[in-house]
């Protein structure tokens, strides 16, 4: 198995906050859509 290298002698980096926010939004928005629809369906269970 080839394994990752050491961090020694490497220039530090900075991950843009915008990229992290975009990545989380990209997965979070569809998940929220799915959750909303499922909760709506599940509410029939308590609606009598």
């Amino acid at each position, binding site marked *: *198995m080839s394994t*990752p290298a*050491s*961090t020694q002698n490497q220039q530090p980096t900075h991950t843009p906050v915008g990229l992290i926010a975009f990545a989380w939004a990209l997965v979070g928005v569809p*998940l929220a859509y*799915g*959750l909303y629809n*499922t909760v709506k*369906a599940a509410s029939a*269970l308590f609606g009598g």
Partner: protein
Amino acid sequence: MAVPSFLARERIVARPGFNRWLIPPAALAVHLCIGQAYATSVYKTALVEHFDSSLTSIGIIFSIAIVMLGLSAAVFGTWVDKNGPRAAMFTSAVFWVSGFLVGSLGIYTEQLWLLYFGYGVLGGIGLGIGYISPVSTLIKWFPDRPGLATGMAIMGFGGGALIASPLSRQLMNFYDPGYDGTAGTVPSGNSVALLFLTLAVVYLVFMMFGAFIIRVPAADWRPDGFDPASVKSKSLVTTENVSANNAIKTPQFWLLWTVLFCNVTAGIGILEQAAPMIQDFFRENGGSAVAAATAAGFVGLLSLFNMGGRFVWSSTSDYIGRKPIYMVYLGVGIVLYVILATLGSTATWIFVITAAIIISFYGGGFATVPAYLRDLFGTYQVGAIHGRLLTAWAAAGVAGPLIVNGVLDSRGTPGELVAGDYRPALFIMVGLLAVGFIANLLIKPVAEKWWEPKTTDAPTAAAAPERSTVR
């Protein structure tokens, strides 16, 4: 088998200062897509009518996909560990999307075998590789919280179905306005073919996004304030490494295989039968007190607990330990199954709460197992070991429905069954959980003879990573 350089593990080694919170969405981007596998019931009836076939013939598509998931995870696990998560996610995307494209062609040309080959075989390979692809990477990025990390990703697999079900209904309605998603209307076969094409494009974009933002940590990287010695102090947790080939020679692997098999089989027993089960439990004088819409709501509630359990229980295992949490899944599971079998038909709330907690344990069992493997065998080839362990899932996917359907077939006709008809199946599940509980109790630390030599990670320091734009 070499991979193109842009996919190589060496190209995605993160530089110092990289923010590890970019990794969970990369993993979720893959798992949310492949989780669609649990939403196949949305177009099942449409395919039965389109192919003028039976439910069993169409149900085989899902069975092939799950069996291929287990087989491909076991066969390609070592390849995934060797070549890294980007190559694995990329390959998974290619297979998963090809599965939809070939499946779409099969539906359009009315050739069922193409659907078996496309969604079942090709898609199933994509499922297996995709399922294990981000797991070992997450464990390495979150050595302080491996349960939380794997819980987040594997929660995505449960979440994928929550997204795909309503999205598929809306898309089929768009392609076939005659279908409005209510009971009694069935979408046309061509609308399912177009749905497959659309999903292929959407999933390709999402999975490639995940593949190209994923990074692996350098060997000497540690989270701020994390002391590896603190991990070693917990019982059953090793700082040693065991290879995948050696892991399957240990009793710990097979005991954990048994634990997973029993936990999954018991959960599938309820999941597979959820909608008719709640109606049958409250059947009086031939009719059920539970309406079809309420039963569908129950299925939705179980999906939420399945997904939530993956995150909540797996995260909890970081605090109470992996062995104790499985004692909860299996031990409390036994009590809950007994309650379900004996008191489940006395009140709807007892039935619903009991079943929901059981399903949360089912999801939790899936999400916690990679962290359990990491505790026992180290991080060296945990992805490959996880892949081999998933054969337990494939076996449970066959055993669970066989047990439940076998018992119910012997007790009566669907639509006329009552709570008592389920009791033999539920007590079989109690027995299975007891077997799993004992297997979990027997798990001890892995013997020293299976440990890899200390030089295993030596090439790590020597390799010089190339640069990539986003680190």
